[in-house]
Each structure stands twice: as C-alpha cells, then as structure tokens.
C-alpha cells in the first residue's frame, strides 16, 4: 500500500506556512518600507540617505574586509580539523563535541567573553602586564587602534563560528565512500594527492553549502563587532540597527536590511556558480 500523494505536501505545509508568516511577510514589508518616500513620490530617498551617510562606505568596506578575512581562514581551519577528525579512532566524539561548544554560545555572549579578554582591564592585558611585557593597561579596541580592533574581531569571529563550517564538512566527509581512498592506496597515491584529487572534488558540494551558510552569516555580523568595537567599527547590520533604534528612521534601516539581503543573495549565486558540480561526478 502506497501513501496518498498529498502526504508529503501536508507534512511540509506547517513549515511552509510558518516561513510565509514569519519570514516572507516581514521581508516584503521591509522591502516596501525601504522604498517608502514618506508621502512623497521620491521612492529612493531612503537609499540616497543611506549612501550619503558618513558611515556607509566604511560599513561596506569593513563588512567585506571581515568576510574576506574570516571566511577563508575558517574554511581552511575547519578543513584541517575535519581531516584530523577523520584520522582519529578514539576520542573523536569528545573532540568534536568540544570544538562545537562555541556554537551553543550566543554571538553577543561570545563578543562579551572576548571583550573581557581583550579590553584594557581584561585578562590578556593583565597577563602581559604581569609578565612585564606591558607598562600598564593598554587599549586595543578603540578608534585609535583600528588594526588590533580588527584582529580582535577576527579572532572572536573565528572562535565563534568555525564550528558551523566544521560540522558541514564532517558530514560531507562521511558521505565519501571508503572504496575511493582504498583504491587510491592500492594504486600508491600519496595522501596529499589523494586529498587533492579524490577528497576535495567529492567534498565540493559540502564546501559549497558551508561557504554559503558561513558567508551569509558573516555578512550579517553584528553582535561581536558591537560588543568589541561599539561605534568604532561600523558594519552594515550595525548601521541598520543604529538607524532603527538610535536615529529612529525605520526607512533607512530597511534600506540597509535590503542591501545586506542583496549582497548575501549575490554571494550565494556566486558560490552556486563557482562551485557547481555535475551530478555524474558524484558517487
């Protein structure tokens, strides 16, 4: 006896309705709001205000810089960690579990943890001072020290979100049939060659998913930057927040939100195209 054909649709209906009500409706409202000229026919007023703001170019630059630095490092790190996990026979689960702990920490909390480490009265300052390497409390996280501030944010982001990439890659590794690596061994391939010519191509779909997930999240970076840098390092979502709550101009905030969405969509399209795989190349 086969199940009626409508069953799958009925099963996804609740999720679809949930998404429609809580995601698509607000999304459409946000887009409409961003083009709202406040009673005038000038539908681009919010976008012009956004582009003319003194933090706009800085926010774009900082956000792209962060994504450009953080995502490749995280991919490389996660790849290394995933390979190590593959080779482990005992204790694998415990290591994986420890590595994914940061996933359970909210991003604002993670930012505050790193703030406690890096601020001028923080742990790192104290330790370096007691070792005699610093003369006194040294600020690293203000507008006069943009490089250390950026490094601090990059560190916190790597700590916080590498596990997202790791989990997707670990799952991907487990999908690769053992026969391939056994065959490579039989034919005497070195491990680097096997990794480059067998593992990487077979892992491509997972890398693609991990990159899309991580990049979209990285463009939305906010809480960590806000906790560590406050106003010193404007990023796109931070500007949306400031326009919404501090400047109380919901239209410009919506314009920022739409811009972040467009950038994320564009990044997704680029990954889908650049890392596309033909079905026949997969096991």
């Amino acid at each position: 006896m086969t199940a009626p054909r409508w069953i799958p649709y009925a099963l996804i209906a609740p999720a679809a309705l949930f998404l429609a009500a809580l995601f698509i409706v607000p999304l459409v409202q946000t887009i409409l709001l961003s083009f709202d000229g406040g009673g005038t026919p000038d539908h681009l007023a919010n976008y012009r205000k956004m582009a003319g703001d003194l933090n706009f170019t800085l926010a774009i630059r900082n956000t792209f810089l962060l994504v450009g630095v953080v995502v490749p490092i995280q991919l490389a790190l996660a790849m290394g960690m995933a390979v190590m996990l593959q080779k482990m026979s005992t204790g694998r689960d415990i290591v994986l579990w420890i590595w994914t702990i940061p996933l359970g920490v909210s991003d604002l909390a993670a930012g505050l943890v790193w703030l406690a480490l890096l601020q001028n009265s923080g742990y790192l300052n104290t330790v370096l001072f007691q070792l005699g390497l610093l003369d006194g409390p040294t600020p690293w996280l203000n507008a006069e020290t943009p490089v250390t501030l950026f490094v601090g944010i990059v560190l916190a982001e790597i700590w916080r979100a590498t596990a997202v990439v790791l989990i997707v890659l670990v799952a991907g590794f487990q999908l690769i049939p053992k026969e391939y690596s056994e065959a490579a061994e039989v034919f005497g391939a070195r491990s680097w060659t096997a990794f480059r010519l067998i593992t990487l191509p077979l892992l491509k779909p997972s890398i693609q998913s991990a990159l899309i997930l991580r990049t979209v999240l990285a463009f939305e970076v906010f809480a960590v930057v806000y906790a560590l840098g406050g106003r010193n390092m404007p990023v796109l979502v931070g500007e949306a927040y400031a326009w919404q709550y501090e400047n109380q101009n919901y239209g410009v905030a919506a314009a920022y939100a739409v811009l972040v969405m467009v950038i994320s969509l564009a990044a997704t399209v680029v990954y889908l195209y650049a890392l596309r795989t033909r079905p026949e190349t997969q096991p």
Partner: protein
Amino acid sequence: MTKPLFAGALALAAAGLLTASAARAQDLVFLSTQLRPIEEAQKVREVILKGAPKTTYVVDEPSPFTVRMRAEQEAGKKTVSLVGALHGELQPLLTFNALDPIDDVAAKVASRGIPAGLMELGKLGSGKQVYIPWMQATYVMVVNKKALPYLPAGADVNALTYAQLAEWGKALAEKTGSRKLGFPAGPKGLFARFLQGNLLPSYTKSMVTEFRSAAAETMWGDFKAVWAGVNPNASSYDFMQEPLMAGEVWVAWDHVARVKDALQQAPNDYVVVAPPAGPKGRAYMPVVAGLAIPKGAPDRAGAVALIEHLTKPETQVITAAEVGFFPVVDAKLPADLSPGVKLLAEGVARTQTAKDALVALLPIGLGDKGGEFNKVYFDTFQRIVLRNEPIRPVLDAQAEVMRGLIDATKAPCWAPDEPSTGPCPVK
C-alpha cells in the same frame, strides 16, 4: 504516584499563574523607561508607589518602549494606563497620536508649583498639555579629587572654562601618563546632548541658528584641544560611572543618573561641579521626565490619581532620596540624604545657580526626528574631531542636514535660540 502528584502541582501552579495575571490585569499598568535597574524599580514599587492606587510598575528600554506604544496604538488593544519617559522619548509618541491631551490633569496639579517653563515643555509644542513633568535631572561634571592638584593655575574647579578644561586634560595626560578626561561617546552614551546642550550654546548662545557660525568654528577648534586629553576609550563609554570607578577617567561629564553608582560607592573621592563655560556662558541642559496618559488608556482615572500621587511634594522628596532624580515641584530636600545623592544635589545646584548659567532646552517639536537631530551633532563631531576633516566645509554640509530636519518638522526655535515664527532658521 509521582506522576499524578506532579500533574496536580502543575495544574495548581498554572491556576496560580492565571489568577495572578487576572489580578494584575485589573491593576493599573505604569510603563516607564526611567528607573529601570532592578534596585530602582523595587524602590518605585515598594517606597515611591506606597499609598498610590494599586499599580503594576513595568519598565522597558526606550526603543522597545516606542515600538510597544506604537503596536498598542495600531492594534487598538491598550494595556498601559500611564507612561513615564523622558521628554525626547515622549515626543515621537505624539507623531502617531498615542497620547491623550491632559489639560484637565494640568489644572489639578497646578497648585504643586511646577515651574511654568517645565509645564510648557510638557506641551511638546502642540498647544495642549501632553505630559506632566515628573522628575528632573541634568548633566554635570564629576571630578575625582586626585585630579584637583593638576588644575591649571588660577582655575576654579567650580567655574571652569573650556580652555581651562583643555589645559587640565593636557596636564593630567602628561603627569599621569594616560588621558584622564572622559565623555560618554559610546553607542548608548549621551554625548550628543553634551554637544548640543553644553558645548555649542556656551559659544554661540544657540543650538540651531548659529550652528555654522564663526563662533561655532572657534568652538570646534577649541574642542579638538579638549579631546586631546580625552581617554581614547571614550567611544565605548556608555555610562561614565564605570570608567570613573575603574580609575580610568578622573574628570567626566554625564547625566547625574549615570554617575550615581560611582558617587554612592565612594562619596569621599569625588566632587560634582558645573560643566565648563564658553564665551557666551555656562550652558546646561535640564532633563525632564514626564508622565503621560495613552489615548484609550484602560484606567484613565487611576492614571490621573497616580500622577497626583507622584507629583506630591512628599513623593518628590522620597524620589530624590531613593533614586537621585530631583523634584520638579517646590519641595525642600531633606538634610539626611545619602552622601552620594547629596553630592549630586550639590552639583545640580551649582549648575543651575552659576552666575553665567545659560539654559539650553531639550529639542521641542522634532517629532520622530529627535534621533537624527542628535546624529547631526555626533556626525559633525566624528568628522571634525575624530577624522580630522577641515571644520568649515563639515559645518556647511551638516548645517544643510540640520536645515532639512527642521524644515521637515517645521519646529520653531527653542531656548537658547531666539523664538521664531516659522521653522527655526539655520543661518
């Protein structure tokens, strides 16, 4: 037997919760953006509201507060009968028509002796009374006594000028090895209020009209010299009590409520003085929190009774003693104030009674553009002081933004600018 027991307990608890919320629903809901910290909220519930009609005191941050009021207004389902918030936070509520005119209540509390100027603020430029002044405060300078030996020669800490502040900051930085002046220029700090309420009017006797005058140009030049002595972490300071207590900053400007903890903790370490003066006087900005009744409030009569209770001289004195906001009515503060609050009270008195005092009012009539108005000042500061852009072109560009905001809201001038008939001109 454990399962039924557990279920029974759960049912009981649920019933308890239900009755509690039912009882609550009948209480008057008083929503406030002020006195939010748990200890202060408890003081309100247990001490300040004693003898008042049965009230549920609820607090919310300013931005969710506006959103909640707008949501209640748009949904037509009102739960809040009384709101307590700052002048600038009540102003946007008027733009979506969420507040009930309360001229009747103004008549009832007329005998309390609330100064006419404060009552006028409560009209928000609308011609009708929209809120009743509740408590007031202002911005002061808190000075750690350790900084006093470094005062420039001939300077009186109670009558500083901006030039002396710059010199003092420089001396402190040179002698102590770190920059010891502090301003709350962080994301939640009130630094924009310093620029518009203290600094600019002290040089120009204006907040809007003379925004790009030659005097303003001089002021920004002078302030760059002050900033050279300001701690580089200032752009993350929200409440100055923290860097003061940490000893990171020795001379700080902030709202009295945001330095109170430092003063309470170590009243013997600090003096509280008036902010510095410029060529046109010692400008300061009185802060007013007001009480307003939402349109369609479920218990308007109760709210009126509560306003009467909160503006009684006795309640006002208790409020000052317990939470450090000062009376808006004619009431004498008791002699046995806690040492921290006493310091604050002295600082406020010094600010208000300084010979060269110049009152700069909170913006009036800007509707929901108050946030963007603050941004004009903060952006100007960022560009001139932090990014070192030439002063004249920045002032010209930002004056245009300011003019756009004023024209869009048609707000007439407020003190210290001369009254205007149309929108306040930006020269």
